[in-house]
């Protein structure tokens, strides 16, 4: 007893530098000082360098005239537009590739992923080869391949591949019919919106009713007929206001229709097929993660094969699939910056490429470009985390 009492003050004599608390605070202060000093040095160097190169700082350049053309613009843009507008054009082009690519990649990815688990040997073999080949080739290689080896090898416009007289594929891109919106289009759009709202409300009501009475309503069929029927009725009332302008070959090129530039096609197809290989693997591992006992239990409850899949397997598999799926979507969006390799005017090519070369304002431009991608990924991860919280298994 006395021993212990006598030892206790001895510990207090030990230097305060060995106290974990003091150490941790000291370390943090050192870390903070290092970061601040480094940041200050960088800022100081940057200030000196910019002054020496006589580069103005600030975001004023966004209001200057850009003076370069862009070969795909979703909003009106000309050479007399500002750099700010060029930025918006590039951003929209990036978003266009991302959206189209994500839809395509999801469809292909789910098909291939299910194919890898198929009982059919041929289907399984083809899916496996698809995944292994596409996953193991660099995306930029695939984009260049599509652009240089596939699309440039297409025939010229005069001998273009003709699909039903509506779509023409040539080395100048893909020409598709252009929708013309006549009078009364507004009503059709309103009908679409109304149908969508009705469908969502009906879905909720049907779910509530099933909880109450146990009866299942044919939600799918009702909603499908709502979504197709209402706009159709509106179309008939207004006398079909939406018409399509067909492309026609005049001289050496096409007149009318919308020309989808080959850069867009190459980028989107390459990114979609590349990402699809990863999505397929996510889908496969998600389905495999659901234990076989679940299927057996569902069967012994008397559910049919389709019901088992729809009500038992898929909801559980989705919990595993969705988080990696979102990160694949994010990867596709980030990979769309490879556009600069083939000259598709996306955010990086237009802004960090051409605009940077013209104005030399590296810090502002790269900060904005990185910021855009950062914001995109932060938004995605916030949505993902809230989704994860909602579907995560609640352990009691």
């Amino acid at each position, binding site marked *: 007893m006395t021993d212990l009492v006598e030892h206790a003050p001895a510990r207090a004599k*030990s*230097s*305060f*530098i*060995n106290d974990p608390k003091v150490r*941790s605070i000291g*370390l*943090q202060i050192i*870390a*903070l000082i290092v*970061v601040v000093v480094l940041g200050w040095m*960088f800022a100081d*160097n*940057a200030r*000196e*360098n*910019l002054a*020496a190169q006589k580069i103005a700082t600030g975001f004023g350049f966004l209001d200057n005239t850009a003076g370069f053309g862009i070969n795909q613009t979703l909003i009106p843009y000309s050479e007399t537009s500002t750099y700010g507008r060029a930025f918006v054009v590039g951003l929209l082009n990036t978003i266009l590739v991302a959206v189209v690519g994500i839809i395509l990649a999801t469809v292909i990815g789910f098909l291939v992923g299910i194919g890898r688990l*198929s*009982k*059919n*040997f*041929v*289907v399984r*073999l*083809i899916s496996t080869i698809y995944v*292994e*080949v596409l*996953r*193991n*080739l*660099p*995306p*930029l*290689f695939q984009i*260049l*391949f599509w652009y*240089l*080896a596939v699309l440039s090898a297409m025939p010229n416009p005069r001998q273009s591949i003709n699909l039903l007289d509506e779509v023409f594929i040539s080395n100048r891109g893909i020409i598709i019919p252009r929708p013309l919106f006549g009078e009364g289009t507004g009503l059709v759009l309103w009908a679409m919106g109304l149908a969508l709202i009705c469908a969502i409300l009906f879905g909720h009501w049907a779910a509530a009713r099933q909880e109450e009475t146990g009866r299942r309503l044919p939600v799918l069929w009702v909603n499908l007929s709502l979504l197709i029927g209402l706009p159709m009725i509106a179309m008939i009332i207004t006398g079909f206001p939406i018409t399509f302008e067909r492309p026609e070959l005049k001289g050496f090129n096409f007149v009318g229709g919308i020309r989808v530039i080959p850069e867009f096609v190459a980028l989107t197809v390459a990114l979609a097929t590349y990402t699809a290989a990863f999505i397929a693997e996510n889908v496969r591992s998600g389905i495999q993660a659901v*234990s*076989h006992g679940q299927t057996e239990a569902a069967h012994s409850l008397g559910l049919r094969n389709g019901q088992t899949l729809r009500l038992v397997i898929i909801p559980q598999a989705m919990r595993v699939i969705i988080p990696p799926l979102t990160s694949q979507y994010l990867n596709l969006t*980030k*990979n769309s*910056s*490879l556009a*600069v*390799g083939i000259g598709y005017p996306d955010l*990086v090519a237009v802004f*960090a490429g051409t605009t*940077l070369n013209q104005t030399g304002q*590296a*810090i502002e431009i*790269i900060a904005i*470009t*990185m910021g855009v*991608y*950062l914001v*995109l*990924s*932060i938004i995605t991860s916030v949505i993902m985390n809230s989704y994860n919280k909602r579907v995560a298994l609640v352990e009691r």
Partner: protein
Amino acid sequence: MSLTFDDGTFIRTDLVAPLPPPRRQIGVVGWVRENLFSSVLNTVLTICGILLVAWVVPPFVRFMIIDAVWTGENREACLGPDVGACWPFIHAKFGQLIYGFYPIDQRWRPDIVFAAGILLMVPLLVPSWPFKRLNSLLFFVLYPVVSFVLLTGGNIDASAFLFEHFGLIHALVGDVTVAGVNATFWVDYVLTAVAVAALVGGLLALLGGSGTGAARTTLWVFLAFGALVLVWDIDFGLEYVETRQWGGLLVTLVIAVTGIVASLPLGILLALGRRSQMPIVRLLSVVFIEFWRGVPLITVLFFATYMLPLFLPQGTNPDALLRALVGVALFSAAYMAEVVRGGLQAISKGQYEGAMAMGLSWSQMMRLIILPQALTLVIPGIVNSFISLFKDTTLVLIVSIFDFLGQLRASFTDPNWASPVTLYTGFAFAGLVYFLFCFGMSRYSLFVERRLNTSHRR
């Protein structure tokens, strides 16, 4: 009703041999019925699949082998109506694809680097091989230094740069060169090392800590750094080859290997920082990791090419390849940190508690107990991030560094070899090379995963 047993009753004493299963369910026929034609949908899928294979495979084989041209001097050989791959084109461009514009008489240097890399890498990857610690020390510490000297030619004037900032005796005496090595610098260096070590040790001793230990650590750091500068400073008589002349697969591998070697220690530090109890350290690590993971590599390369020079003192103009390497290293360190964090999280709490109960300090616990287990667990993850880094190296072609893909693209413009099949031949060859590298690595990562996975799978 009577029960009679007469002696003629037959009782079987052994089992009848089982009948063979129906012939439709076994063998080739059974397999085909089960796997290919079990239902209408399955039959349709099988036929479509076979048609697809028949549509793709024969033309591919014809192009690659049967119709291919194997010998020739220039484009003349590869012109013609039904010509397949133009392999003489690859043969002619092979050197360029592997070494870029590295001087032809100096190409033995990258060859040694390649060979040494393979010699060190293979024993590192085979799990049953002994001497892992020595091997990884050689690969991660000695190999990069030797490769650097071999590839660039060494003899860079690192001392001159350091002098201008830390010279003490230099200001008094000036340059004294002994055997090609600047003696003044080294006297200066030793003095600085001793002074700094004494200062650090004294300060710590004053505060009541272990002064000698701190002084010894400081001296070791100076020694390691000094050795590095010395090796770079020695003139081995190698011709200087500037990085602008490097190219092809050499650059691809240099970037990928540097990225992985540099990102491993940085990634471990960041992962430890992210799991740390100290809020400021954790915040800094999280911000660093999430920033680099949130932006595409292209913007990182643009950052390294255009923005990094602005942040450095005026007059320092680092080499283009070096700048790209810095960008790639920072980028992959963030991904590596997340891989390592996964490993750290997989170690059970009992291991930490056990280590602490043994009285190990934090650094001992990490070095001896946690990290060895965590790093072994994440080998597949490390290999996977190496694969994606390897694929990502192609992006440097956008900041005009000619890697393998860049050299391939450049070789298409050669009028000597302009033929309709040149493009396809080039893509076929490059695709094959990339595929072999990435597929091989992914198989290896699967192999390690299986080895580590001791759970019973259905």
